């Protein structure tokens, strides 16, 4: 057989059409459902945070689908488990953006994981939600950060506890960017309120023997300890602190204890009296929250884990995005971003959560609560708190073309005086 130019062209165009066909079919299918991708650690050291978040995300999507979906379409939830490994985060982020062509991705627990994947979503123009409390400072049009930041929690917790316990504060924190920057916020708010941070100590995440530090705390004689410790190994601190009888004399305040349900991991007598601050507690006494907790228990069954800010905000984050889609009338990225930035709000279990357009962060209620018998008793509620820390350094209204993390090198580098 001789190949003439005509037969070659005919064959080539036929095979080109065949190659193109799956892509066309793929796109047609994509239009039938809305793609919601979630990338959260369900194994490895961070699973105590990730698993409840996946549970509530699933519950939110199930509820939306049962109510007829969004814009008349069903939402397809795809969940990836990056196994507490940053490398898998970047891999799944690329898969979600380029492979799955996700309409929205809700992902990341640690700040390190967020910083690993945020540029990927900016590059592929995939709408990205980060629903975890963190140190503040992300300024990215494409990224909505719905969790609480230190200006919302630390700023309330520090004056309240200093007023109650005294002005000499000893700070213990986890040794990575979250702990370091949060410790700087604590130092700042302690100084702003006329107190003294007598010592700040950082702990690698695998430290389990806190004996030397407890002796140093006894020698420094502070009025209170402020903890930004993170993860399973650091739970040892609270136990050894109580074993040395210190919890009776020098009380602890924290904006990290409880968010991995640590208050269930230590016994009642070890934890009693600690004061913590988050934008959500399972014990919030409102009909909306009691209903949410009951639905979660029904959804997840008897062995449902305790709910915390991460789990509640993963749920509310999904609904905030849905509100944006409803208002925009489409799942297209830019219309949804614009709709969200009109100051959309959602009334969830934690109360009202409103998108703040200058920072793409959230106005939210902040609660102070005291631990008693492995449960939190709400002491104070501060409604609609703005993310003033990020507002100091970020204005997406004036300059929307930003995709940076302002606190990458600490607060002083960002021009904030401690």
């Amino acid at each position, binding site marked *: 057989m001789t190949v003439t130019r005509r037969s070659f062209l005919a064959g080539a165009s036929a095979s080109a059409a065949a190659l193109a066909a799956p892509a066309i079919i793929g796109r047609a299918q994509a239009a039938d459902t809305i793609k919601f991708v979630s990338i959260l650690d369900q194994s490895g050291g961070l699973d105590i945070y990730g698993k409840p978040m996946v549970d509530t995300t699933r519950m939110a999507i199930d509820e939306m689908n049962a109510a007829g979906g969004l814009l008349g379409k069903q939402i397809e939830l795809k969940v990836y488990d990056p196994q507490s490994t940053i490398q898998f985060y970047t891999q799944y982020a690329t898969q979600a953006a380029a492979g799955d062509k996700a309409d929205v991705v809700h992902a990341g627990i640690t700040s390190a994981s967020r910083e690993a994947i945020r540029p990927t979503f900016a590059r592929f123009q995939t709408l990205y939600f980060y629903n975890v409390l963190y140190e503040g400072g992300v300024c990215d049009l494409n990224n909505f950060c719905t969790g609480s930041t230190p200006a919302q929690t630390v700023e309330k917790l520090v004056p309240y506890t200093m007023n109650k316990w005294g002005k000499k504060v000893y700070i213990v924190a986890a*040794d990575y960017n979250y702990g370091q920057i949060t410790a700087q916020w604590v130092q700042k708010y302690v100084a702003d309120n006329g107190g003294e941070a007598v010592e700040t100590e950082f702990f690698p995440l695998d430290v389990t023997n806190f004996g*030397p530090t*407890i002796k140093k705390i006894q020698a420094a004689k502070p009025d209170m300890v402020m903890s930004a410790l993170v993860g399973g190994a650091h739970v040892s601190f609270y136990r050894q602190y109580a074993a040395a009888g210190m919890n009776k004399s020098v009380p602890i305040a924290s904006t990290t204890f409880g968010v991995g349900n640590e208050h269930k991991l230590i016994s009642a007598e070890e934890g009693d009296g600690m004061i913590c601050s988050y934008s959500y507690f399972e014990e919030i006494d409102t009909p909306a929250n009691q209903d949410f907790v009951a639905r979660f228990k029904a959804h997840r069954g008897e062995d449902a884990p305790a709910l915390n800010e991460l789990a509640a905000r993963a749920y509310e984050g999904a609904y905030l995005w849905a509100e944006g889609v409803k208002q925009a009338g489409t799942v297209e990225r830019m219309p949804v971003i614009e709709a969200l930035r009109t100051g959309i709000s959602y009334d969830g279990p934690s109360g009202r959560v409103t998108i703040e357009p200058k920072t793409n962060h959230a106005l939210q209620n902040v609660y102070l609560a005291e631990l008693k018998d492995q449960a939190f008793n709400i002491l104070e509620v501060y409604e609609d708190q703005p993310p003033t820390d990020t507002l100091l350094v970020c204005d997406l209204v004036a300059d929307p073309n930003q995709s940076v993390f302002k606190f990458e090198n600490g607060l002083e580098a960002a021009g904030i005086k401690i």
Partner: protein
Amino acid sequence: MDLVAAVGLQILYGIANLALISLGLAIIFGMMRVINLAHGEFLMLGGYTVVVAANAGVNIWIAMLILAPLVVGVIGVVVERLLIRWLYGRMIDTLLATWGLSLLFIGLVTSIFGASTATTISPPLGVISIGEYTSSAYELLLIGITAALGIAVFLALKMTNLGLVARGTMQNAEMASALGVSTSRIYMITFGVGAAVTGLAGGLLAPVTGVLPTIGSVYIAKAFITVISGGAAILAGTASASVLLGGVNGIAAFLTGPTIGEVALLLTAIVLLRLMPRGITGGIFRKSL
């Protein structure tokens, strides 16, 4: 003065803590030259035994001192029979197999109990004061138990018939076998005892640490460094390496901070292994147990 006493006690506790988490690994490594990468998970299983038993209403002392070593010891024997005995003399294969085993244990415990398990136990015993400093009486007890455990292992190896046979197998397995010793049985018992000691350690630490499926990974590195730094002799190696590394870590952590404390520990181990590649007991105390 009070501060010196309080910090001294704290450093002693740090040393005992290191010895406690390493002893089980040292028994298995010293006797069988098997590196058990699932060691951290044996500790974790000991902790879970205590938490589950205490939540079910079992007396905490019974749970810690009897149930934890028993349960993990039995698991150890099963693991040895099903997995380890096929791999004797194949160091790399054992490493891989026990690593897989550690992942399996983490997965199993996570799927049974979830990512975290609520606990009701807190350290028994009260608080002791040294001047204006306070320490946990439980820490003092742990130091005592660690010392007692070391003495018990010493006596078992030195005084009993089984200990004699075990030491013989350790020195020359083929010769022991030729003399009619069932080395396979000795290995099984050794692995079981090593696992039981590890389970006891995990159980004893349960009231002062967090008990999570992934907590083993926190211990494994330190246990390893201690055992490798100590060298082949089970007791002298573990004891000398614990004193050195635990002491350096405790002093550095108190003087500077926990980050430098960890760095000092690792640096000491590196320098030590550079000078004595076979560990402390490869260089000095060579004839010891």
